[in-house]
């Protein structure tokens, strides 16, 4: 039955009630998401600095943004962080899921342990790792106590390496989540396929590589989406762990935007940088959402 034919059977109230009920949320979304995107976009084309200023400035703020060395450090850091965070998170998560799938005793406990970091806020994670990676007292002192006297680990205060400490803490936090997604996927794979392959004499590793993992392609894409999305939005972790420092060496676009818009009185540049973030996310998400929603309609 088509939607309009279905509607013909409804009374007047029942035809309009659903729309009326949805209206507040729709309006909130329209104003506070889409309206604000336009508003923020407009701000990025004005001369706004400490205060919003509606004088049109064309692409001036974007020019300032693109000539700002700090912005490019942030972009480069995001690239480093995202690729390592996603790559290692995926590898560790998938590995753990496959290991846990081998009829392990105490699987429940192990799963719980692997996943609990996801319940913590990034601020807590950042604070904890900041203490452990602290040169002098943290890991470094531990290694010295264990007899490795020349061990040094100063990434946290080393402007060349500080972004990698963010990777360490981020992967610790999120890899259990990848494990959970893939484990759910693995449990959904039909056992008979695996049995058939085993009868054919295929090794377990080969079965995973050739049959099971390819079947999990949708899970892989979902996870990829979510991890890249977490990476682009990451703000709290950087703020709590390094504060973007030393200097601005571990800045990412999210912390850059915050600094420009709220502490340095460069509202226009802040707005422009957030539009760049939006563009990046949209480029990733819109095709994904499109295929998800379309796929569901056909399936």
């Amino acid at each position: 039955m088509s939607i309009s034919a279905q509607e013909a059977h409804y009374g007047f109230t029942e035809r309009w009630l659903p729309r009326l009920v949805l209206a507040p949320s729709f309006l909130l979304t329209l104003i506070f998401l889409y309206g604000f995107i336009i508003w923020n976009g407009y701000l990025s084309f004005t001369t706004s600095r400490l205060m919003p200023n509606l004088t049109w400035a064309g692409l001036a703020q974007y020019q300032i943004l693109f000539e700002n060395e700090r912005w490019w450090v942030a972009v480069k850091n995001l690239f480093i962080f995202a690729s390592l965070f996603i790559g290692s998170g995926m590898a560790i998560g998938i590995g753990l899921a496959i290991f846990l799938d081998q009829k392990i005793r105490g699987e429940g406990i192990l799963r719980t342990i692997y996943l609990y970091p996801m319940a913590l806020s990034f601020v807590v994670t950042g604070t904890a790792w900041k203490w452990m990676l602290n040169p002098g007292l943290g890991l470094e002192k531990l290694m010295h106590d264990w007899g490795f006297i020349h061990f040094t680990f100063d990434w946290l205060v080393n402007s060349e390496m500080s972004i990698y400490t963010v990777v360490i803490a981020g992967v610790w936090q999120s890899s259990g989540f990848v494990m959970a997604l893939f484990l759910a996927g693995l449990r959904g794979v039909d056992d008979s396929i695996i049995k058939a392959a085993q009868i054919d004499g295929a090794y377990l590793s080969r079965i995973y590589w050739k049959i099971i993992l390819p079947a999990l392609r949708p899970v892989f894409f979902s996870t990829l989406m979510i991890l890249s999305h977490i990476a682009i939005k990451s703000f709290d972790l950087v703020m709590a762990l390094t504060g973007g420092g030393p200097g601005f060496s571990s800045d990412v676009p999210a912390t850059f935007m915050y600094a420009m818009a709220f502490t340095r009185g460069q509202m226009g540049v802040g707005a422009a940088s957030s539009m760049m973030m939006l563009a990046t996310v949209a480029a990733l998400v819109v095709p994904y959402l499109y295929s998800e929603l379309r796929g569901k309609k056909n399936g």
Partner: protein
Amino acid sequence: MANTLGRILLYTVLCLTAFYYLLPLYVMFITSVKGLEEIRSGNLLSFPTDISFAAWGKAWSSACTGVECRGLSSYFYNSVRMVIPGVLISTALGAINGYVLAKWRFKGSEIIFAMILFGVFMPFQVLLLPMAQTLGWMGIASSTTGLVFVHVVCGLASTTLFFRNYYVGIPDELIKAARLDGAGFWRIFFKIILPMSTPIIMVTLIWQFTNIWNDFLFGVVFSAGDSQPITVGLNNLANTSTSVKEYNVDMAAAIIAALPTILVYVFAGKYFVRGLTAGAVKG
């Protein structure tokens, strides 16, 4: 034989990884019960000889978070005041939206769903500047009410998604039968749909609770002194530069900030995991 060796190897790897995931929790806890002198003389893993919860007391009621030295307690209550209405309102709206979008579709409702769905992914940085101004106009800038409002607006997308995907799985025949019996929009919702919704309500409550409790971005941008949530309090405390850095107090504070979500995870982990997987836009 090779098989036994493989199993041993497997368990070794799994246990070592478990150790790696637990390490920060262990370090946080033992550091929080050590004295400063012991922190300096011992190392990250060394067990405390003298267990004291003084650092916890200090973190709760007298540690300095910037200029003020009143500990985390007031931040903690701010978070409680923010999280309860935020979670309840966004969940209720999500349930209603999901019900309409799954069972009362109309021309254009799919487009509305797609529009709301984008809110799950959008980087909130885009909202910060306009929102700051709007909250000012509405007279709720730097207040808990303002934060609740922001969390409701931004949580709407995920709560709607959760309920919509769950309700799609409820057979349409059920609704049709109820309609034949003369039940209307609200009656079907309250008498049939809602009683079947306990699992998804749990998932959404826990998901929203974790997200709102753990939020830092909105907290740091939209709140001031007496409305700041616990995450901002913790960050201020850990980044306050004092002459003597009190790592035990920092770690106690971090555990206090993490405790509510850890407890939820321990007692309702099943729903937490379902929320995580449901967040992966499947359904």
